[in-house]
C-alpha cells in the first residue's frame, strides 16, 4: 500500500493537537483554498474530483453543494458524525486521531458553500471524540482558523460540536436536522431537500465525516490526483472498516475498486482461525449479505450494486462457518426494530414483525409459511416507508433468505437452532 493519506496522522503521537497537525502540513490546504480559490471554483474542483458521499448513499459531494439555491442566506453545514450503522467505526478513528483534519475539511467546505455557521452532529456515545473535537475547535479559534475574518480572508465561520443522545435515525439527514432543532429525531418529507430547505428551513449542506475529510487533500493535490485512483464512477480513496471473523480487524485505507479478497486476506489477515467464510456483509448492516463466491468483487459503488448489494459506509463484516445466519439476522432485525423512529407505520410495524418472526424461527417456533410471510412484509416496507430506515432493515432479511433458505428451513423443520448444542 502506498503512503497513507486519510490515515496519515493515525498513530502519530499527539496527532490530535494543533501543533502536531500543523507540523505535519495541516491547515496548508485551508490557506491555499482561501488564497487561490473563489467559492464557486472550489465547488467545481470537488465536482471534478468525483468525490462521493462516504456516509453510505454515495451521492457526489460537489453536485450536492451545487444544489444550494443562489443568493439565499444564511446557509448551514452539518457534518454527519452520527456514525451508527452497525459495523462502521471509521469516522470515530478520524475524529479521535485527527480532529483537525476534519475541522480543516469543514472550514474549506463552508468557504466553498458560503456557510458561516456549521455543526458537527456527533453521536452521544462518542464522548471521547466529542471532547477531542471541542478541544480542537478551541485551538482552531485561537489560531484564527475559525471565527471572524479567517486568515485575513474576510470569511467568517462559527463551528459548534453538537452531541446526539442515542438514536440511529439521526444519522438520516432529515432526522439529524430535526434532532439538531431540539426535537425527536423524526425524518422530514423530501422534497424540499435540505440543500434548499434544511436546518431552520434554510439551505443546508450535510456531509459525512469522511467526505469532508477528503476535501483538504483534493484542494492540495488536485482533482486529477483523486480521479487517478479507483474507477471513473467511483474515484478516490475509501476507508474500509473490517470486523467479525478476521485476524486483524480495523480501519484500512484503500483505493476504491480494491478487491474484497485483498482487504480480507492482505490487510485483515484472513479469516479468524482459518475458518472458511460463510457470508460477508459488505457495507454496513443494512447492505445485503453476499457469499464467498463474490470474494473478488471490486469494492466500489457500481461493482457491488451489480451483484445486488451496496458499498454503503464501507463496513465489511466477515461471518465465518459455524455461525448461525438466522441468529445473526435476528439480531440485526432487533436493531432496526429498536431504532425505527415510529413515525411511519410500514417501518414501525414491519420491523417489529420481522424481528418477532425471526425470533420464533431461531427459538424453535418457526412455521413453514414464515419465509413467504417475511418476504411479503419486506415488500410492504420497501419503498413504502417514510425514510430509508425501512429499506435498510430489509437488506439482511431478504439476502439471507436468498442465500441461506435451507438453513432457515432446517430451523423450522427441526424446531431448534442447529447451531445450539
Amino acid at each position, binding site marked *: 500500500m502506498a503512503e497513507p493519506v486519510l490515515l496519515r496522522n493515525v498513530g502519530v503521537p499527539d496527532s490530535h493537537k494543533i501543533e502536531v497537525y500543523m507540523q505535519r502540513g495541516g491547515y496548508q490546504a485551508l490557506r491555499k483554498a482561501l488564497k487561490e480559490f473563489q467559492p464557486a471554483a472550489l465547488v467545481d474542483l470537488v465536482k471534478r474530483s468525483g468525490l462521493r458521499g462516504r456516509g453510505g448513499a454515495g451521492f457526489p459531494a460537489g453536485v450536492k453543494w451545487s444544489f444550494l439555491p443562489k443568493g439565499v442566506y444564511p446557509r448551514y453545514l452539518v457534518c454527519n458524525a452520527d456514525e*451508527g450503522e452497525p459495523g462502521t467505526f471509521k469516522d*470515530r478513528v478520524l475524529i479521535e486521531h485527527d480532529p483537525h483534519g476534519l475541522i480543516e475539511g469543514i472550514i474549506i467546505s463552508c468557504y466553498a458553500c458560503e456557510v458561516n455557521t456549521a455543526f458537527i452532529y456527533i453521536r452521544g456515545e462518542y464522548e471521547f471524540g466529542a471532547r477531542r473535537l471541542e478541544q480542537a475547535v478551541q485551538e482552531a479559534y485561537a489560531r484564527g482558523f475559525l471565527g471572524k475574518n479567517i486568515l485575513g480572508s474576510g470569511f467568517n465561520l462559527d463551528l459548534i460540536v453538537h452531541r446526539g*443522545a442515542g438514536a440511529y435515525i439521526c444519522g438520516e439527514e432529515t432526522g439529524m436536522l430535526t434532532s439538531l432543532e*431540539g*426535537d425527536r429525531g423524526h425524518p422530514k418529507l423530501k422534497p424540499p431537500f435540505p440543500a434548499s430547505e434544511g436546518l431552520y428551513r434554510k439551505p443546508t449542506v450535510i456531509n459525512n465525516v469522511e467526505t469532508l475529510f477528503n476535501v483538504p487533500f483534493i484542494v492540495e493535490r488536485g482533482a486529477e490526483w483523486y480521479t487517478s485512483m479507483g474507477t471513473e464512477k467511483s474515484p478516490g480513496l475509501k476507508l474500509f472498516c473490517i470486523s467479525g471473523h478476521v485476524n486483524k480487524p*480495523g480501519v484500512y485505507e484503500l483505493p476504491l475498486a480494491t478487491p474484497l479478497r485483498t482487504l480480507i486476506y492482505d490487510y485483515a489477515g484472513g479469516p479468524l482461525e482459518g475458518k472458511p467464510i460463510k457470508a460477508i456483509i459488505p457495507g454496513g*448492516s443494512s447492505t445485503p449479505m453476499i457469499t464467498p463466491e463474490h470474494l473478488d468483487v471490486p469494492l466500489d459503488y457500481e461493482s457491488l450494486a451489480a451483484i445486488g448489494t451496496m458499498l454503503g459506509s464501507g463496513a465489511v463484516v466477515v461471518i465465518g462457518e459455524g455461525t448461525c445466519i438466522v441468529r445473526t439476522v435476528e*439480531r440485526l432485525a432487533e436493531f432496526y426494530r429498536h431504532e425505527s423512529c415510529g413515525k411511519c407505520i410500514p417501518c414501525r410495524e414491519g420491523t417489529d414483525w420481522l424481528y418477532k418472526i425471526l425470533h420464533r424461527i431461531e427459538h424453535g417456533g418457526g412455521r413453514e409459511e414464515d419465509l413467504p410471510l417475511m418476504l411479503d412484509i419486506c415488500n410492504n416496507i420497501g419503498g413504502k416507508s417514510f425514510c430509508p430506515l425501512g429499506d435498510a432493515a430489509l437488506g439482511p432479511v431478504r439476502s439471507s433468505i436468498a442465500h441461506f433458505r435451507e438453513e432457515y428451513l432446517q430451523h423450522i423443520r427441526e424446531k431448534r437452532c442447529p447451531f445450539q448444542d
Partner: protein
Amino acid sequence: MLSDKAKSEIQQLKARYPHPNSALLPALALAQKEHGWLSPEVLEEVAEVMGLSPAQVGSVASFYTMFNRRPVGKYLVQVCTNVACSLLGAEHIVEHLKRKLGINVGETTPDGLFTLLEVECLGSCGTAPVMQVNDTYYENLTAEKIDQILAELRRR
C-alpha cells in the same frame, strides 16, 4: 433540583445556537450529568429554563436512549450486542457480567453501584466485544478483563 450553575449554562447554550431550541439535547445531557437521571421534576425545570412545555421536553427525552428516565447506578455498564460484537461472543460477556454483578440486564445492584444494559452498536467493531461504562469504552473484552475492570471500579 437543577443547580443555578446548570441553569446559567443552559442559558449560555441557548445563546450559542442560531435558534434556542437547539440547546434542548445538550440541556438534557447537562441535567442528567447533574442528577444521574431525568426525573419528571428535572424535566419540568429544564422545560422552564428552555421556555418549552414540559410535554415537549418529555417527548424529546423519551426518544433518545441515552436519556435515563429511571435512576441508574453510579456505573452504567452498557454492553454492545450488535452484529460484530455478537460474532465475537458478546453474549458470553453479558452472561459473565450478570453472574459477577448478580443482576439481570436492565437491573441495578442493590448497593447502587452498577446498572447493566445491552445496547446497540457502539462503533467499536474492530475491537469487539466492547462495553461502555459511563463515558469510557472498554474494548477487546474477555471474562478476565471484565473482572479487572469491575474490581477497579469498585475500588474507586
